[in-house]
């Protein structure tokens, strides 16, 4: 598909070439489903890119000394990896791709509130992402994705262009968030009241609030770094009365809630998948909703736990430690709710549920290691070591990426109308989970042993654990490739799935798969609850009584 298109939007040429027509139909679409798919393609490319950087970094660590790249290249690679994964993949991935596709379907709307803004937000994302990648590819940037001053304000690398790019991407995030908030408030079908909203939509709602409130703070602090760097204003420069720790406060005021921008939608996916494949109502719906909103709120009060050793007062540090524990409580409620939902269910074990199983283990492990790093004396040892690297990869890869894969398989029939191969899907899920664990578990131990992060070379006694981690990364990559292959094959040759292969009651399954251009031939009444599995579908085979199951 070529990307050429012309600015005259509504003028239909008399005999247009087919390719150009198709390009215009897709690239200038205002259909939320197509924008979702466009986002999916773009963010997946970012994932592939970020993953490639990660593999290179792991290869570099195969030996204690230099392996394949120079120290300068290594520093640029981990910066590229972080920036690409955080801003170009993890933050937008689930809300923009799946959120755009599914939120209108889940609330019985035919569109988002601002379809043109939605398209604009996509192109801002593409432009910003291209800007960031060009700046970093051509100019090089070696500050790490955190841009800590005063290193970043004195670094001769491409700090300003990269920050401009991230600033641009931030606009896309804000516009998407506003769009979802307005859509969910104003466009719900008549009978879809707040407490009947599907849980994925609730998760997107919570996420959007964080996006709208936190992203401007990031924009402002990056702007100040740019001014500092370009005009030597010295706002964060201690020699001129500035305070470098202030930057860290501002940065983490955004970047800690950003973790919940990544994990809340993932939790939304898990809630949907668990309920659908257990064919049972979530236990309890309200607990999940309140926990979602609770995380969105408390997430704003915990940023200081990134700075226990940064020179904060011990009182502040203690307060942030306690507040951080609260997030874990909300997460624990969700985990127990999901488990409890499985109980007495009628469980269909398919690939998405397998990913959710992996999610449960990895997220609980990663989350509890988060409680461990909020336990302050332990964090003093772990801060800025591989322990922290392992901890947040358990949440972001073990949590968010695993849920993204679950979502991909779960809604694949919804989007394409085809079935993927369960055998390939499950094998890929197993490879991804095992590979992930093999990659990141050794990094916990590396952190314990005292290996700081962002080290190009390391003392030889860390070699064995590093090699184990690198081998794991290859397993993880092959699992992802296999999953990609399975889905690509199914996209082209998969058997038709029917409208509702999982027998889900959720609102988005109450239309054809793939949905017609305007989502619903006729907007259903949604009288039956999104999680009401107490009665059989009219077209389902009659209830089979199985003697060994207590009802």
């Amino acid at each position, binding site marked *: 598909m070529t990307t050429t298109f012309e600015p005259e939007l509504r003028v239909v040429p008399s005999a247009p070439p087919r390719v150009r027509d198709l390009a215009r139909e897709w690239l200038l679409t205002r259909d939320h489903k197509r924008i979702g798919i466009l986002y999916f393609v773009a963010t997946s490319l970012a994932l592939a890119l970020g993953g490639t950087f990660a593999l290179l970094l792991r290869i570099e660590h195969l030996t204690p000394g230099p392996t394949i790249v120079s120290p*300068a290249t290594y520093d640029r690679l981990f910066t590229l990896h972080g920036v690409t994964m955080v801003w170009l993949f993890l933050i937008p991935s689930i809300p923009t791709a799946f959120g755009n596709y599914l939120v209108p379907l889940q609330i019985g709307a035919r569109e988002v509130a601002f379809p043109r803004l939605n398209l604009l937000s996509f192109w801002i994302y593409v432009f910003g992402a291209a800007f960031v990648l060009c700046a970093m590819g051509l100019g090089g940037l070696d*500050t790490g994705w955190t841009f*800590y001053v*005063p*290193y970043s304000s004195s670094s001769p690398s491409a700090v300003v262009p990269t920050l401009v790019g991230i600033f641009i991407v931030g606009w896309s995030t804000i516009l998407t968030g506003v769009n979802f908030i307005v859509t969910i408030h104003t466009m719900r079908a008549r009978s879809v009241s707040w407490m009947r909203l599907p849980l994925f939509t609730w998760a997107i709602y919570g996420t959007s609030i964080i996006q709208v409130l936190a992203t401007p703070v990031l924009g402002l602090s990056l702007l100040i770094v740019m001014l500092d760097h370009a005009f030597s204003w010295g706002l964060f420069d*201690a020699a001129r009365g500035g305070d*470098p720790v202030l930057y860290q406060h501002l940065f983490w005021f955004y970047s800690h809630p950003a973790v919940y921008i990544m994990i809340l939608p993932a939790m939304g996916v898990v809630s949907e998948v668990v309920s659908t494949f257990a*064919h*049972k*109502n979530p*236990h*309890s719906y*309200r*607990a999940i909703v309140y926990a979602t909103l609770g995380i969105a709120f408390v997430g704003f009060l915990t940023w200081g736990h990134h700075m226990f*050793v940064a*020179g904060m007062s*011990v009182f502040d*540090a203690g307060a942030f*430690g*306690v507040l951080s*524990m609260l997030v874990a*409580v909300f997460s624990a409620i969700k985990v127990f*709710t999901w*488990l*409890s939902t*499985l*109980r*007495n269910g*009628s*469980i*269909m074990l398919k690939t998405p549920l397998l990913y959710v*199983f992996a999610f*449960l*283990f990895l997220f*609980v*492990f990663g989350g*509890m290691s988060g*409680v*461990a790093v909020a*336990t*302050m*004396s*332990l964090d003093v*040892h772990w*801060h800025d*070591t591989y322990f922290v690297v392992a901890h947040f990869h358990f949440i972001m890869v073990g949590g968010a990426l695993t849920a993204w894969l679950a979502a991909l398989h779960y809604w694949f029939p919804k989007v394409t109308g085809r079935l993927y191969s369960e055998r390939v899907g499950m094998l890929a899920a197993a490879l991804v989970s095992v590979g992930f664990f093999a990659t990141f578990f050794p990094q916990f*131990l590396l952190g314990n042993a*005292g290996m*700081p*992060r*962002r*080290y*190009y*070379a390391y*003392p030889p006694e860390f070699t064995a654990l590093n090699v184990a981690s690198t081998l794991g990364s290859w397993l993880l990559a092959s699992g992802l490739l296999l999953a990609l292959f399975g889905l690509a094959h199914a996209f082209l040759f998969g058997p038709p799935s029917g409208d509702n292969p999982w027998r889900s009651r959720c609102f988005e399954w109450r239309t054809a798969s793939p949905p017609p251009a305007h989502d619903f031939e006729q907007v259903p009444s949604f009288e039956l609850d999104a999680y009401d*599995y*107490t009665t*059989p579908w009219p077209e389902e085979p009659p*209830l089979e009584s*199985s003697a060994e199951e207590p009802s």
Partner: protein
Amino acid sequence: MYELLRRLFFLPRAATELARAIDALHFVVIGSTLLGSLAIAAAAVWLITRYRSDVVRPTPHQSARASREWLLALGVVSAFLAAWVVGYKQFLRFHEPAPNAFTVYVTAKQWMWKFTYPDGRSTTDILTVPEDQPLELVMTSRDVIHSFYLPGFRAKQDVLPGRYVTLSLGAARAGSYRISCAEYCGISHYAMSGELRVLPAREFQAWLEAGSPDHDSSLVELGRTASARHGCFSCHTDDGQTHVGPTWSGLFGSEVLLADGTRVLADAAYLTRSMMDPQAEIVAGFQPVMPTYLGSLPQPEAAAIVEYIRSLRRAEREPNPTLPTVQVAPPDAGAARSPAP
């Protein structure tokens, strides 16, 4: 048992009592993390096998009982808070001033650690300290943010430009411990490492004597001359008399009443702050007239002046003042005078 767990968790040999205590908490917290996640996974496996079904059956509507969630939340939060309370107490110990500490001034720069000792000598990347004496580091950076990391002590502290931070480390066992920079600071970040050598008292004494011939003035002596050169004595005295500014005699280790009513401990970090940013903490009863010495007073001289002020603490207070609780002497109260009956 401790040794076995320590090796199982790949932790380096613990240098101090505090490090061992932190490790004990580590085993409890990470042990329950492992058990907790395995239990959740096992429960999920059991539930999936138990309720797996080839045909989709209608399931009963499970209504939520709110009491359960609250009970769960309460249980989880109290377990977490218990870990936090223990952890916070340990955390505070890194920031409590130790009496009789062996104090070393640390200056970080890309990409080396410079250590300045009380007797005036300085070394690069290798820090030698005596066994069985608490160690206190007063640190600053000359360029970007670094982080002084001692895995063997389970200790870490970011080192900031334009700010002095202290890190209290307990008395360590003899041995050699790795020093790393933990905060990314540029291209040679990974190479900014050093070694902390903790020597038994006698060996340390030998090391002190072996190193001393090449300089004849101690840090205290340097501090006195530097104070004179920078004009400190036009406002401060070292004999206990109040002048334009507070006297230095007996100042170190005392509790100082500030103009805004708060009390601070006059430790190395406070004294350094008072030189670099004098307007921030005005002592009660004095005018805010002191200029900043930021930029004009080099770090080694600042360290020397602090060391000089420290040497004055024993001048009139025998025996050692115990810190930081009792001896509060507001400058206007004249607490030192004898009570006239």
